[in-house]
């Protein structure tokens, strides 16, 4: 997309600022939850930008940012094969077991 030279004001093909994923803990006692992403030059700026972008209305008490490039994700194409080992192990759920009548506190 850099075929047109003007008038975009782009600073001479500087590489784009890296992408960061943002996680916010809404309240004490809850886990950090993914809320979105943003661009920033470094971690410190990413944290400040995340505060301005994702917590303008007291949405959180703690923020994590991490470089998107550092995330290793499973592939949706392999979803079946990848998660298959879990599918046939229903005995991992407590509901698999029959509790005899009269047995309490189980």
């Amino acid at each position, binding site marked *: *997309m*850099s075929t*047109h030279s003007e*008038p*975009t*004001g*782009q*600073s001479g093909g*500087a*590489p*784009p*600022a890296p*992408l960061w994923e943002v996680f916010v803990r809404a309240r004490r006692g809850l886990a950090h939850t993914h809320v*979105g*992403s*943003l*661009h*920033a*030059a*470094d971690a410190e*700026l990413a944290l400040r930008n995340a505060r*301005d*972008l994702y917590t*303008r*209305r007291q949405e959180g008490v703690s923020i994590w940012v991490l470089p998107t490039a550092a995330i290793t*994700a499973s*592939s*949706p*194409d*392999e*979803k*079946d094969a990848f998660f298959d080992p879990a599918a046939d192990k229903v005995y991992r759920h407590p509901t698999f077991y029959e509790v005899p009548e009269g047995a309490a506190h189980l």
Partner: protein
Amino acid sequence: MYGNDFPADDTSGGLLGEVEAAETALREAAERGRRGAAGVNPAAYFAEVIAADQKVEPRDWMPEAYRATLIRQIAQHAHSEIIGMQPEGNWITRAPSLRRKAILLAKVQDEAGHGLYLYAAAETLGVSRDELVDLLLAGRQKYSSIFNYPTLSWADMGTIGWLVDGAAIVNQVPLCRCSYGPYARAMIRICKEESFHQRQGYEILHTLAHGTPAQREMAQDSVNRWWYPSLAMFGPPDTDSTHSAQSMDWKIKRFSNDELRQRFVDMCVGQAEVLGLALPDPALCWNEERGAYDFTQPDYGELMQVIKGAGPCNRQRMEHRRRAHREGAWVRAAAAAYAAKQANQKEQANQKEKAA
């Protein structure tokens, strides 16, 4: 009042109620889940996901046209938020009180935030934000035509909140149910924040409309100028809309331009009455048979002209945007240089530690 695919609650909580209903629907769809994966026939799987009101996610297979349509729509939406800061930014230094000034600042900051959420949603489709910004600055992607109208008086801050944000909300609430997950989630967040925008605008107008005769007149003049451009925000009539049918099939879009426009008009009539201001349409009248208001259509010729670049402020908006981008270049460069320097120092410290 806003939607017809789920029950409306009372009018005061209507908007937020709908956004919450969309959020609940999103969670329920996720709960229903879907076993299996795209496998050998990704196109059939995609169709099934859409038919089951499930969300399409970034790494799923999707038709190229679906991807392109979403990129175009989300980018245009993001650009609108960014350009949309200008008409209101115009009045920040001249807000009539500290309270109004703080509110206006917060609103304009929200718009920057909305633009960024949306660019982030677009990036999940494989396009970079820099690319999209470039397309905007080069005039190759559009933003909403409404922002090419000037803000001539303080009352315009009220009218923009009431009518322009109101129209945007009517457009955007159904997008909370869009089939593309990241867009739907961004829209839920945006709509919750937009509700504040609309109410603060309504409050400004209500105050002016109940003020001195001059203030009242200023409010009425503002509504007169913004009414038809606001109606035009819903786009060309259904008969001329090029993108509608396919977008409806893909559940990107849920209602047609004309349906949403009608919904907006029906909503505004009562709100204008409470303000004690007139909507500038002598033909506006209740149609018992249709159960809706008859109204005069906006001038679609004018809409096309503004979209093509001949609106009152197109040139000014773009020039301002380009200048702001150019003048911010050193900030981006400085942040990158600082980050590189810090990384370098860390690297050197690490090596020293290893050597020691």
